């Protein structure tokens, strides 16, 4: 990719935000993995700076929410199929194949679409002046830290 360091800083920040979102139990959460990886690939050739990471954090948050809704859509399609199929006649193998097909049909075009769109608007995002990347980076880090501290304090200490 050209710039592993950028990937590491971006990835670490996104993981911290992700952890402060992650619920303990089954629920839809923003898909930060795809969003952060896509952003790293797109920004791979640029030099790492906290300002650059901060400038793209709002974009990553929006993208991860977008992919969360795609996951929700996939699950809703699966639910729709499950409601219609009589349980006695289910062929598990076919449902598993269908699941992979649904996943590929939804996610592959979306990832490619987002990639080309992000690549197209990359320079516009970098040139944005109405917020400072470094300030947003600090905001994301400290807000996520505060949120996490309370979560572990509230429910995290053992039995």
């Amino acid at each position, binding site marked *: 990719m050209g710039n*592993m*360091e950028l990937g*590491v*800083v971006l990835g*670490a*920040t996104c*993981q*911290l935000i*992700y*952890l*402060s*979102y*992650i619920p*303990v*139990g*089954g629920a839809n959460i923003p898909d930060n993995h795809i969003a952060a990886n896509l952003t790293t690939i797109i920004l791979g050739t640029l030099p790492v700076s*906290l300002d650059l990471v901060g400038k793209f954090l709002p974009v990553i948050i929006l993208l991860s929410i977008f992919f969360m809704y795609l996951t929700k859509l996939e*699950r*809703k399609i*699966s*639910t729709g*199929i*499950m*409601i219609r199929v009589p*349980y*006695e006649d*289910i062929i*598990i*193998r076919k*449902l*598993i194949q*269908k*699941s*992979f097909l649904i996943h590929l049909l939804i996610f592959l075009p979306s990832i490619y679409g987002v990639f080309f769109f992000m690549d197209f608007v990359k320079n516009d995002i970098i040139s944005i002046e*109405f*917020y*400072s990347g470094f*300030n*947003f980076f*600090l*905001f994301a*880090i*400290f*807000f*996520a*830290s*505060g*949120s*996490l*501290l*309370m*979560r*572990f*304090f*509230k*429910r*995290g*200490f*053992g*039995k």
Partner: protein
Amino acid sequence: MTRIKLLYYSFFVQTFWNYHTMASIGACYLLDKLLKSDEIPKSIRLRLIIFFNGHPYLVPYAISAVGKEIKDETNPEKINRFIDSVVGMLGAIGDQYYWNGVKPVFLLIPCLSVLIFQDVLLIYIIISISFVSYNFIQINERIKGIVLGSEFGFAVVSKIRLVKERWGYQYFAKISFLIILIFSIVAFIKYVESYPYIIFAILFIAWGLVSSRRGNSYKYLAFSFITYCIMEFIL
């Protein structure tokens, strides 16, 4: 060889996850791979399809126990009752141990290393160790589930309960709390250059604390953004 095959199929437990029957299809798929299709009584297969859920790393415990009991020709009614009772336990214990303990620790250690160390090579090594360790733990749990389930049958419940006695169940969350505390303090020292930054950093941590306390309320998130806008305006 069969165990390796089962380990491979255990990664498909959450395939076709849906809001109606949850992880039932993945669990049934794992059971299909464990036994031949015609060996599984129809009532048990139907029970699994109707509803099944649980933490993906702990599901092999239950499914291989079901497989063992089917092989021993236990009454299907009893097996169905076992499935009913084990579903809640798999979720509660697994989520608390893995999602609230193991995962945060193994994510936060690399995050902290990025903030503390300058040496990129050292950071890569820490990330790699963390990645390998986490996956070792979860793969080990799956293998353990397959082995213990097929050995103990219904009695595997006591083995699932033993997860609560593990050192990590009690301490991983505490370690995570400490790492975040260190993370916040180091971030203060490293990035904060002047007192307005210190004030805003304290404010953001405070909003984060309150927001989480109230269950990630949108209201507190909105207040934080207002604080952020003020910061942009002042600095």
